[in-house]
């Protein structure tokens, strides 16, 4: 019996046969109060003001309305950057998802018996995952110079941590029978892993990698802002020059591209599972 139940005693019902059953009081009030309290603090700190929103909300649509109609003639300038963005995401996602595999193997408790290695690997995955992609992209531009390589690196780093985490969780839930049998037959751990574990986790790996790629295409659009190549570069430029019809065209192309890639990848993922 927790403190909460002592303060707000459970409701008692007496049944027809004389037995009493207790219904614990709902915990909802605590959560509501907690959320309200946090909202209050947040509103104070951020200066959130619905009145401003209502009064000046139409300003939001000023830029939006200038994007219509999009400048279709600008399309020829978009083709290359958008292809760059797709290429960056494709290569980055592929690199990240492949590189993460050995690390994921070492991070799963059923394959790697050394607890320190497991903990270290998981710590690496966690820390890399918390690193904002934008920051890794910015660091990459300092190291590799401005351009698509920096963006690819940032995407690869993100994919590494994202797929890595999913994969070690996936590897931990596989059926270990085949692995043990192969070890008993004299294969070493890596061989046993390749022949017994890989086929089991393959569909999940491919499906998650595709999903990751989908998301990265959308995310890569932001990376151009720090000079890491792709569509973000011209988007930022056109926004700076206030060429809103061009911005509208860029967003339209981005939307169509993301739509096509998502449709293809969703179809492929359905086939896989």
């Amino acid at each position, binding site marked *: 019996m927790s403190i909460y139940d002592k303060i707000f005693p459970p409701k008692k019902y007496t049944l027809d046969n004389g037995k009493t059953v207790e219904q614990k009081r709902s915990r909802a009030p605590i959560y509501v109060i907690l*959320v309200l309290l*946090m*909202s209050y*603090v*947040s*509103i104070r*700190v*951020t*200066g*959130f*003001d619905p009145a*401003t*929103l209502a009064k*000046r*909300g139409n300003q*939001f649509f*000023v*830029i*939006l309305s200038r994007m219509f109609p999009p400048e279709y003639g600008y399309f020829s300038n978009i083709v290359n950057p958008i*292809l760059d963005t*797709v*290429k*960056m995401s*494709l*290569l980055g996602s*592929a690199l990240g998802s492949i590189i993460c595999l050995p690390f994921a193997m070492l991070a799963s408790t059923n394959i790697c018996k050394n607890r320190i290695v497991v903990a270290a690997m998981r710590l690496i995955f*966690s*820390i890399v995952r*918390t*690193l*904002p992609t*934008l*920051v890794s992209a*910015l*660091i990459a531009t*300092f*190291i*590799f*110079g*401005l*351009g*698509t*390589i*920096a963006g*690819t690196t940032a995407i690869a780093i993100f994919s590494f941590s994202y797929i890595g985490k999913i994969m070690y969780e996936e590897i931990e839930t596989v059926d270990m029978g085949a692995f043990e049998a192969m070890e008993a037959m004299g294969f070493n751990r890596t061989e046993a892993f390749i022949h017994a574990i890989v086929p089991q986790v393959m569909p999940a790996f491919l499906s998650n990698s595709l999903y990751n790629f989908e998301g990265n295409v*959308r995310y890569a659009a*932001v990376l151009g*802002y*720090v000079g890491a*190549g792709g569509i*973000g570069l011209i*988007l*930022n430029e056109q*926004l700076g020059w206030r060429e809103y019809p061009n911005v509208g065209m860029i*967003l339209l192309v*981005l*939307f169509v591209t*993301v*739509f096509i890639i*998502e449709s293809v990848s969703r179809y492929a993922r359905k086939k896989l599972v």
Partner: protein
Amino acid sequence: MDERIVKAYESRPKDWIWQLAIAVIVIGLLIWSLGAMETSGASANGGKMAINILNGIVHPDQELLFNLTKEGVPYLLVETICIAFMGTVVGAIFSIPLAFLSASNLTPKPVAFIGRILIMIIRTVPAFVYGLMFIRVTGPGPFAGLMTMSVTSIGMVSKMYIEAIEDLDTKILESLDAMGCSTWQKILHGILPQLMPNFASTAIYRFDINLRDATVLGLVGAGGIGAPLIFAMNAYRWNEAGSILIGLVVLVLIVEWISTKIRVKLTRG
């Protein structure tokens, strides 16, 4: 015995042509994308730069890290949490009507389809574009960041909400109908208990992501920890960047740990 095994082995599904085709396509795509790899060539002293960065991150600016004024890391982190929290709340509120409109089991097909396209469009526009739009409304500062967070949250949150709504167990509603409940009672006892844990779990998950993505807002001057971080990095003040990064990573790890706990509790009831 052996013959039967051999026979079974011979008649295994042979889809190697299909697999080969996919492999060729994938490798072809990867080679195609190698063509786009370019850099401005400023990488001559890249190695030295990398060492400088690492050095700065390992030796963070302690004064900034434990400075309790408005410029210090702790206050910036609190501001970032507030932006992410309120942004998630506002985004989750926006998502509810959108999700109910786009759930194919509640609304007619065309309406649901339009709703989904709308959600996709909202998702595709990069965050800094929204940031610029909201700065017109609210002026630069955390308020603009909050609104940007809320709009960028809509995409994922409403998508998950739609799934929750489409998974609603309608048998419960039928039995409540049979018991003679009013519409209000049906919503209160039949729909809300099914949706609430899912909605709350999604919102908490999104809060995690928003906290991590809050750096993007710094680009357009929309408050939070992003702007000082990017300024410090662009000015090569790696000690400062290091202390901000460490603060951010620790915060995100803590929040992630707590939110995972809460979400496990929510899904297990």
